[in-house]
């Protein structure tokens, strides 16, 4: 019996997916970028040569040098160090917004898909209304109410992100709730909560993981946009979007102030997109590219 269990584990679909994912070069490049970013974010204090917040007017607007590899901004803060610390902000934006969206999206999506009927009607209506807003505009409208600040960005982006997840979970749950194994657990007397969280959700993890990975990328881009407009992170937070917005006044004299934070955003989002696309190919070949 034990031996059989062991063999079953070896042939688990996740292990199989990982094996196929490893063969996808682009996805592995993406994973490498993400890994590097996480390391940079965790060890930022050891990597960054300067304090990202320390104002040093004597060194204002310096060109790249040995001391300041990418030069300094108007307040004499090292751009390189700020970009390093900015990785923390971006990763937090991605992870926190997607976690909140995940909780709301899974709960509402599963409820709608499992119970159907009027529960589904109401939740589907909510999903459709939320999705009818142009994404960024909706986030801006929420920021207008909440006021600027990075914590409000988490909330605003979570509010605009959950409907996409909920719709996917709803569809998945709907398609598997009639399967025999669900009926089997039901007849064993399992209650609805147990069925939903123990048996239904784990079986729709593949599209959820793909959506969340791409959602992290989208959240990072949106945060950069909101901060660029002055509605997101506030100074002196080393947010990449905010750095871009600050660099705008120096577009003629010091374009590096804008080029590097933008590159940081692009590389990060590129890594997440590559990995997300690869995951989709492996886990869920039927998902449409949109």
């Amino acid at each position, binding site marked *: 019996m034990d031996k059989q269990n062991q063999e079953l584990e070896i042939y688990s679909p996740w292990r199989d997916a990982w094996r196929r994912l490893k063969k996808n070069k682009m996805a592995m490049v993406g994973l490498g970028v993400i890994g590097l970013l996480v390391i940079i974010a965790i060890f930022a204090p050891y990597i960054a040569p300067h304090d990202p917040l320390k104002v040093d007017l004597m060194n204002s607007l310096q060109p790249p040098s040995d001391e300041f590899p990418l030069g300094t901004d108007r307040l004499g803060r090292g751009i390189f160090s700020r970009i390093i610390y900015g990785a923390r902000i971006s990763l937090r934006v991605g992870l926190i917004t997607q976690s909140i969206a995940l909780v709301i999206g899974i709960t509402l999506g599963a409820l709608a898909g499992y119970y159907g009927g009027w529960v589904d009607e109401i939740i589907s209506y909510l999903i459709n209304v939320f999705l*009818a807003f142009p994404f960024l*505009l909706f986030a*801006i409208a929420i920021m207008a*109410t909440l006021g600027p600040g990075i914590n409000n960005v988490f909330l605003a982006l979570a509010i605009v992100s959950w409907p996409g997840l909920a719709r996917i979970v709803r569809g998945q749950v709907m398609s598997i709730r009639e399967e025999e194994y669900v009926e089997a657990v039901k007849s064993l007397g399992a209650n609805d909560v147990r069925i939903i969280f123990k048996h239904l959700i784990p079986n729709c993890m593949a599209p959820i993981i793909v959506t969340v990975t791409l959602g992290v990328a989208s959240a990072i881009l949106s945060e950069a946009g909101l901060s660029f407009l002055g*509605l997101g992170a506030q100074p002196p937070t080393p947010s990449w979007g905010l750095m*871009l917005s600050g660099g705008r006044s120096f577009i003629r004299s010091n*374009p590096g102030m804008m080029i590097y934070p*933008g590159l940081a955003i692009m590389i990060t989002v590129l890594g997440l997109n590559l990995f997300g696309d690869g995951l989709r190919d492996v886990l869920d070949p039927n998902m449409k590219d949109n």
Partner: protein
Amino acid sequence: MLTYAARKLLMAVPILIGIITITFLLNFVFVPGDPVRIMMGQTANEDTIKMIRKELGLDKPLYVQYFRLLGRLAKGDLGRSYKSRREVSDMILERLPATAKLAVSAMIAAILIGVTAGIISAIMPYSIWDYISMVGALLGVSMPVFWLGLMLIVVFAIKLNILPVGGYGNGQIEYLILPAITLGSRQAAKIARMTRSSMLEVINKDYIRTARSKGLSEKIVVIKHALRNAMIPVITVIGTQLGYLLGGTVLTETTFSWPGIGRLAVDAVRARDFPLIQGTVLFLAAVFIIVNLLVDLGYGLLDPRIRYD
């Protein structure tokens, strides 16, 4: 087809009401502080504030305010801006031509670039051209729109000095080129990827082989037989991307100082001018719904197998 369109339009009504409800909640219920005080500043005296509250109907219970708002909106009245005291609908209509011009040219640019790149990739898969357009497409979806805009400004306006840095000018095309490319970049990338995969799928179908074996030229096979069938999923992508495009106008217009609705919305948010925020958001959301409906109806033109009954 007409009944289908009418039914779809009717289904959009509850969605619109939902959108109105959410913006109402955002603008008048969850706002910390008193909108009138925000509008008048901290120095205004109590009597004036009371008077204005009454004038705006803000002294009534929330449900009364809500139904009044629905009534007003049904008549097309978006209210007055707190700041300029002008009709919100006038302010939006004034800005509409600039935004429409930008959005339409961005979409055209995106379709031209995206479909061309996609076709080239699909008819020469794994060639250097395929590689270049797909890497370009990958970068296109990973770049912040406004950053691309700023980079284009650095290159074409500052270094080469052949295009203006921003603004609207007197509507000359030079002013439109960079904003349109910026706004359309993400869509171009998405369209290119979709065209490629959709074309590759179609090109192995039997009817393409039939067309070729009839002796038709490769050009006719690709354009008339393959592309037309491959366009259906591409149209879907265009439809889903329109929301991003409308949202993207906010960033692109801010980057290029383009006098459109997106910038109006950002200025409204900065000034906490709630009727104007509500008006611009509702307007763009309504446009989004209508355009999606048109995209939906557009499928029938491309694929006669789709029937609307």
